[in-house]
């Protein structure tokens, strides 16, 4: 049984997570039961082990569907029939426009304490629709320490109708104090067959392309869809995958590093640049800035704030782009290692099998492990603010040697 064709309603887009769906569905049923009990005043909560709780921490590798799961759960909580996927409560909750579903995420590098305090005050409101006040924090790993501390009290003892859903890549990404106040659910990397199936079913992608995209994306559903539907993204990935084959000399390694960072930067600028220009135009119009009029006194200050925000967003997009490329590279060396070890597993880069085999023949398994470490070290370095170009250069130089 493949779950994605059978799972109904709001859970349909949660690929390959049958166990999680089961738990969340039971929780939503328990929550609905609790609502009807308190509505009819039939006394205290008598359910044995209540499947519902007030704070959840959803973890899983990027692209496994953490936020999809959170939104689906939010919809199931708001929907009178437990997540039919058809009513307006379901639609609005999935699109994060429901009045009682607050989705906090960030396109910059972190969620600050000011945002966290706003969330706390929002969480204390009674749900307008009479069911649940659902607070979804999609990037809980990006909460600053101060922000996380501001949330502690609200997460520990929310008002009776408030539910917190926090999403993070791993439990270690949130403070232990937050972790201990939540019920933890761990999503798995969805199998490539399930990802490919959903691409075919939902996005109408050709099966061969879907299989390639699902493999190349290594279980990241969003990335798989992008690769399957955007030719530019495919071309860029192709360029990145040529990097291990072009590391002849130090100068070539440095040039390759420069190219990789430049491509990721261009990608990011393209992605956020158009939006930024649009936003600036909108704000100027709203402030009444234009030719022939007197500029309002605080207009430039407000535009400056927007500009700073846009800059942060561009930094984040650039880092994400580089990170994607580094994951693709790690995938290449994983394939090399698989060939060297003679493991009979599917290659991530099946279409590059010749290149992979050739690299495998000309290097040792030990060297391959060291190269994988070098790629992961570059990711870690960029994560702690090392200049991206420098980190990637150190990586390409390390990939070259040995």
């Amino acid at each position: 049984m493949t779950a994605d064709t059978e799972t109904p309603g709001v859970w349909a887009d949660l690929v390959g997570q049958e166990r999680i769906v089961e738990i969340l569905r039971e929780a939503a049923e328990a929550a609905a039961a609790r609502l009807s009990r308190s509505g009819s005043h039939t006394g205290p909560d008598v359910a044995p082990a209540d499947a519902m709780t007030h704070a959840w921490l959803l973890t899983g590798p990027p692209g496994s569907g953490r936020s999809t799961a959170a939104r689906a759960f939010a919809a199931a909580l708001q929907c009178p029939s437990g997540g039919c996927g058809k009513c307006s409560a379901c639609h609005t909750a999935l699109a994060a426009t429901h009045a009682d579903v607050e989705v906090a995420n960030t396109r910059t590098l972190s969620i600050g304490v000011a945002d966290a305090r706003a969330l706390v005050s929002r969480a204390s409101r009674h749900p307008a629709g009479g069911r649940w006040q659902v607070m979804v924090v999609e990037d809980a790993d990006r909460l600053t320490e101060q922000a996380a501390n501001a949330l502690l009290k609200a997460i520990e003892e929310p008002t009776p109708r408030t539910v917190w859903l926090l999403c993070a890549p791993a439990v270690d990404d949130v403070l232990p104090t937050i972790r201990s106040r939540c019920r933890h659910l761990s999503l798995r990397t969805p199998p490539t067959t399930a990802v490919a199936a959903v691409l075919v079913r939902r996005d109408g992608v050709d099966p061969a392309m879907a299989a390639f995209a699902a493999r190349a994306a290594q279980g990241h559903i969003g990335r798989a869809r992008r690769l399957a539907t955007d030719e530019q993204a495919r071309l860029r990935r192709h360029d990145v995958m040529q990097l291990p084959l072009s590391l002849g000399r130090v100068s070539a390694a440095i040039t390759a590093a420069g190219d990789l960072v430049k491509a990721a930067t261009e990608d990011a600028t393209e992605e956020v640049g158009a939006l930024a220009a649009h936003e600036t135009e909108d704000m100027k119009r709203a402030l009444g800035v234009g030719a022939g009029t007197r500029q309002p006194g605080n207009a430039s200050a407000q535009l400056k704030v927007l500009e700073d925000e846009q800059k942060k967003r561009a930094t984040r997009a650039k880092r994400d782009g580089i990170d994607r490329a580094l994951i693709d590279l790690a995938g290449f060396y994983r394939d090399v290692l698989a060939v060297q070890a003679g493991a009979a597993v599917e290659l991530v880069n099946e279409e590059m099998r010749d290149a992979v085999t050739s690299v495998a023949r000309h290097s040792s398994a030990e060297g391959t492990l060291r190269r994988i470490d070098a790629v992961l070290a570059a990711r870690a370095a960029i994560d702690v603010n090392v200049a991206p170009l420098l980190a990637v250069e150190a990586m390409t130089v390390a990939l070259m040697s040995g």
Partner: protein
Amino acid sequence: MMASEPPALVTLVTGPEELLRDRAVSHIVSQARRHDATAEVQKLSAVGLEQGRITALANPSLFGELTVIVVGDLGEAADGVVHELRAYVAAPPEGAALVLVHGGGVKGKALVDAVRKSKAPVIECKALKWENEKIAFVQAEFARAKHTIRPDAASALVDAVGNDLRELANACSQLVADTDGVVDRAVVERYHAGRVEASGFRVADAAIEGRSADALRLLRHALATGVDPVPVNAAFAAGLRTLARVGGMPRTMKPDDMARDLGISSFQVRKARGQLGGWSAEAVAASITAVAHADEQIKGGGTDPVYALERAIVAIAAARAS
């Protein structure tokens, strides 16, 4: 006494070097005073300036004396003032000299371009970036005061106080006032001994050229005069990057062609070529690894950024020697 030429009706003073801008303005003011001893000087800032004020000040006065209007911070002018100034520049009234001072940059660039188009005299106050420009500046300062400084003394003076042009100019006038005859290196050292303003790039050059003792010394000077560890390390990375890329190009290639291919200046290409002697590709690779490690240490991975930089200098020296 025959009155001299009055200043132009509109003058634009533009560029990032504040000292040069101030000098240009005082030059115009004194020119106006020479022409008309009763000349009145109005110094305004465009910040918060109300529309119409400049036009009102430019109206001919009862006694017909010259008015010099200096408008600073041109980039901050509100749209209304910009509009007014455009009209003013298109048809400047007689009896007033308008001096527009712009600090460079893109703010207020449209107005600056309009003034340039009007054929009004423009005084450019470009920032002096390179050492040879600063040495030329020192020599010009001495020549203005009818004094002479030896080239090596000028270079020592730039090393000592060259970061800020105003400070450099003050040092020049001090030397002119306090000394007789030709200023040589010994005189400069008596006044500025032990003081060196080093940039990250000077530290990086010393490290890459194998002068690690110099590099360590310059690093201390750089940090003591307020340079942050992060740009120093970035200068190491940039230097090694250029070294690696230039080293990978064919030796017979012309510096200008190489500069175009690599997207850097031919000055950088020539410098890197000079530094390449003594370097192997492996040594460059090892140094890049060391600098990347230092970057992590500086940005919170370690406890002492200065130690991380010193380690990087030593590592670069060790790699080069191996």
